[in-house]
């Protein structure tokens, strides 16, 4: 209301506002132009000619435009409100204390990069119990860790120390940080940024590490595809993760990942870039080009990754129709690794070798520990028993991360005996429970080292481990005690905690825990109890000292006519059979008793043990009759996870197909 009159009373219409808004704006004080200095010079004639430019009162404008004063007032005020830009004052926040506004450098907050829709969807899946979070922070389990901060610290404090030792040469922490900075600038130039998922399919080579740390440097999220994955698995992962880029090899001996990815790009709307390391691939961005970009990614408060960010999106399986994607945050993962450095006693002068690939969380755990400690990562691009044996003999690692299957392969190929393991002061064995005999055999081969076991999952990283000082019998037979910040329990079918010595479902919770599967409500509903415990799917027995023995997988349990048993002990016995290289027992449906045991074996070269022979062998060793396998399948090789764990689900599928 101008001076108490309604717009209608003074005849203001939208048409009138539209007609006169510009003229009123120009003639009013909103825009002021002064020529010379007429008032100071008392030249009022000159001043009068300039009045329209200097700014007129509403009454004066009204006289010029043929309106009433109130009409001008109404038009002016409405126009001022409509033209007012609200967010300009944010420009002031970065000024002062020596900082001046630079028109050529200024980017308004609204135009600065932010999270894309897909990135926000991923972040929406990251939700924790607030009371627990407060506890984790108070206890120091969740801290200020990010990979970018760790790398900067290592490069600043001990830049000359070797970060990566690879067949093609070594990289110091300072060199690694510089390469990461350049590659991050390259990814930034592609428009990748905070929260974007970048999938990496590469072996344990320096470029993997550079890519991983550069992705983290940008605040983006790395997803991994294991090297054996082919187009079908890759498509599933890229589609589900909404990855914006894939970084892969141009070609391996038997496969061309970059070409395959480019071929599926049209069906993957989120996938903008395929970055290929190796020979040039038409349509792919050469890795080396991005690595050669001079400059640095944005370095401001908005772009910097923070500990609460998810930085990994790892898949527990690349094959399922409903993939289980595990988002992991710095707080949970790096807090767990930081504690692990102390518990495993990793030091800056250690040389850490990971037999598992970095595409798997166990491999990444070894890298996280080494980075936290400022140790050297000895890179083994691809595991084969001879390559592992040679790396140990030649490069003299002090800490070895390995799966039981790696050790078994080394042993069965005869390389365990022939390899000098004197440099190793610590073995951390994980992936599946290590057969005690194998553990003892390896420990016996370590003149200066200790054998330890670790239990973890993609969802948790390191949940249990034995400590270097634990007696061998503890390390050979159990996965140890919880890592700092981790709580564990073993429950019966009714969900009630069991007494020590009883076998039941192994459940975990604590500061290491992932927030829940991304985009998989069914999996989340099944994975957690009402009070926040994660159902690991493993069977375990807790001993009185708090050590946990993982005894199998609950879904591997065979229910024969209502009698349930865990086939793990039988598999251990079969693995020790002279004619058997590897064994796995899976349930097979039976119309009468519900389930029976089917035994898959990989025979030793030249052997072909029959079912009767194996059953007799087991009975000689006290195995009850109802636990004996009732069918035998011989395979050339077992389907294996990247940590060389047998994928029993695949065997069950084979069985179903065969039937």
């Amino acid at each position: 209301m101008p001076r108490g009159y309604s717009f209608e009373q003074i005849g203001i219409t939208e048409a009138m506002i539209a007609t006169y808004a510009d003229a009123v704006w120009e003639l009013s004080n909103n825009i002021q132009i002064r020529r010379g200095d007429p008032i100071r010079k008392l030249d009022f004639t000159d001043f009068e000619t300039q009045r329209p430019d200097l700014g007129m009162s509403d009454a004066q404008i009204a006289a010029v435009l043929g309106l009433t004063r109130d009409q001008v007032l109404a038009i002016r005020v409405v126009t001022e409100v409509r033209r007012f830009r609200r967010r300009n004052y944010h420009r002031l926040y970065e000024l002062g204390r020596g900082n001046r506004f630079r028109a050529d450098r200024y980017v308004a907050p609204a135009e600065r990069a932010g999270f894309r829709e897909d990135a926000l969807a991923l972040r929406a899946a990251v939700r924790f119990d607030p009371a627990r979070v407060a506890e984790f922070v108070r206890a120091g389990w969740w801290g200020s860790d990010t990979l970018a901060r760790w790398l900067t610290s290592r490069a600043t404090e001990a830049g000359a120390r070797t970060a990566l030792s690879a067949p093609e040469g070594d990289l110091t922490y300072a060199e690694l940080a510089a390469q990461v900075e350049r590659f991050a600038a390259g990814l930034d130039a592609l428009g990748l940024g905070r929260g974007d998922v970048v999938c990496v399919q590469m072996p344990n080579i320096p470029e993997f590490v550079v890519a991983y740390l550069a992705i983290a440097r940008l605040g983006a999220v790395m997803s991994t595809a294991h090297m054996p994955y082919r187009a079908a698995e890759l498509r599933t992962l890229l589609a589900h993760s909404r990855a914006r880029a894939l970084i892969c090899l141009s070609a391996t001996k038997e496969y061309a990942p970059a070409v395959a990815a480019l071929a599926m790009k049209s069906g993957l709307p989120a996938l903008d870039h395929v970055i290929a390391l190796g020979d040039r691939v038409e349509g792919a961005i050469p890795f080396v080009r991005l690595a050669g970009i001079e400059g640095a990614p944005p370095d401001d408060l908005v772009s910097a990754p923070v500990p609460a960010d998810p930085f990994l999106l790892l898949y527990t399986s690349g094959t399922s129709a409903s993939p289980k994607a595990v988002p992991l945050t710095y707080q949970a993962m790096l807090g767990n690794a930081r504690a692990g450095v102390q518990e495993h006693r990793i030091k800056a002068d250690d040389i850490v070798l990971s037999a598992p690939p970095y595409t798997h969380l166990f491999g990444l755990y070894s890298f996280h520990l080494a980075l936290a400690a400022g140790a050297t990562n000895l890179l083994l691009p691809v595991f084969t028993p001879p390559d592992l044996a040679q790396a140990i003999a030649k490069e003299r690692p002090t800490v070895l991360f390995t799966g039981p299957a790696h050790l078994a392969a080394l042993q069965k190929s005869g390389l365990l005996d022939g390899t000098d393991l004197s440099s190793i002061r610590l073995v951390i064995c994980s992936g599946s429970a290590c057969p005690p005999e194998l553990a003892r055999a390896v420990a016996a081969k370590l003149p200066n080292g200790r054998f330890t076991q670790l239990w973890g999952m993609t969802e948790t990283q390191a949940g249990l481990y034995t400590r270097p000082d634990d007696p061998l019998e503890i390390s050979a037979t159990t996965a140890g005690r919880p890592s700092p910040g981790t709580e564990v329990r073993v429950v019966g079918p009714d969900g009630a905690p069991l007494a020590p010595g009883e076998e039941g479902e192994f459940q975990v919770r604590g500061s290491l825990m992932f927030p829940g599967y991304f985009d998989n409500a069914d999996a989340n509903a099944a994975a957690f109890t009402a009070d926040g415990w994660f159902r690991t799917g493993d069977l375990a027995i807790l001993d009185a000292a708090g050590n946990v023995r993982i005894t199998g997988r609950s879904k591997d349990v065979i229910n024969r006519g209502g009698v349930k048993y865990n086939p793990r002990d039988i598999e251990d016995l079969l693995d020790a059979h002279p004619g058997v290289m590897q064994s796995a027992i899976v349930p097979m449906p039976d119309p009468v008793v519900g389930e029976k045991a089917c035994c898959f074996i990989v025979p030793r070269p030249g052997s072909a043990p029959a079912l009767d022979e194996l059953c007799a062998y087991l009975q000689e060793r006290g195995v009850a009759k109802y636990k004996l396998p009732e069918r035998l399948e011989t395979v050339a090789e077992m389907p294996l996870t990247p940590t060389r764990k047998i994928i029993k689900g695949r065997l069950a599928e084979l069985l179903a197909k065969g039937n």
Partner: protein
Amino acid sequence: MNERAPREAASDPDAAELKTQIVEYCKRKGALAVGVADLDAIDLVAPPGHRPRDILPGVRSVISLGVGGQTQGAWTVPTKAFAYFGSTEGRAYTIAYGCSFFIENRFRARSVYCPPDMDPEGGARIPLQSLKLHAELAGIGARSLAGDILLHPEFGYMYYASVFTELWLPPDRPLDSNPCPAPSCVEMHRKTGQTPCMKFCPVQCLSGDINERGEQVEMRYDMAKCAELTQQYEAVPAMLADAFAAPDGPARERALSDPDNALLWYKMSVGSGGLLAQCFECMRVCPIATRAPLADPIRRATAADKKA
């Protein structure tokens, strides 16, 4: 002295003495510069309704006084902090208020301190009176290329207040020369087409031309842009309009109470009342505002020491 003054001066030989007493009073109270503006000249420039007589019908003199801007330290703080205390006009108003009492007590002439706020009939951006015009005509400031902010060759950047009185006082003349642009600004303008105030204004609302003699030829100022940065009352209706247009509850909540908007509510309710004052970036880089001989308390104290 203004040429129009002699007739009244002759009829009131004590006027000059009264003026001296008033100037001394104001200076004692903290004014750096005091002058009397020519009332007729004001009437020629100020639009009807905004002339001194529209406030005090019997006005015969307009006294303008200036107080110093902030401390030298203030120029170094973050802009967001400076914006809260950059303006020192409150001090000027207090002196003007006291001065009007002083004149009434001492000289028995009706006086009033000029209300420094908006004309409620004119909308939010229209002041009742132009304090700037009074000060310019009283010879205690000249219009700069920084949106006509007044600068003084000795005191730099000041805040002004006015007193209207029925006491006749001999008026002063405007400053003989304009200190803006400073020689370094002329030099920079020659090279880049901009002076410091133009270059570093956060909304780039200033531009202008300078002739070969280093004098202002044209000053261009987009006041709307400047006001957007420093006054946010218009953000309130815009915020409410957003809230009405919001598609759902969470969006409405955000429209009303996102951190920026919550701050507006805070300032309107329990805060200092100011949204943001001026941004002062143009003055922060202005050599006259920051480096004039008596521009800040440290310089003034140093000059006083030297004099002593």
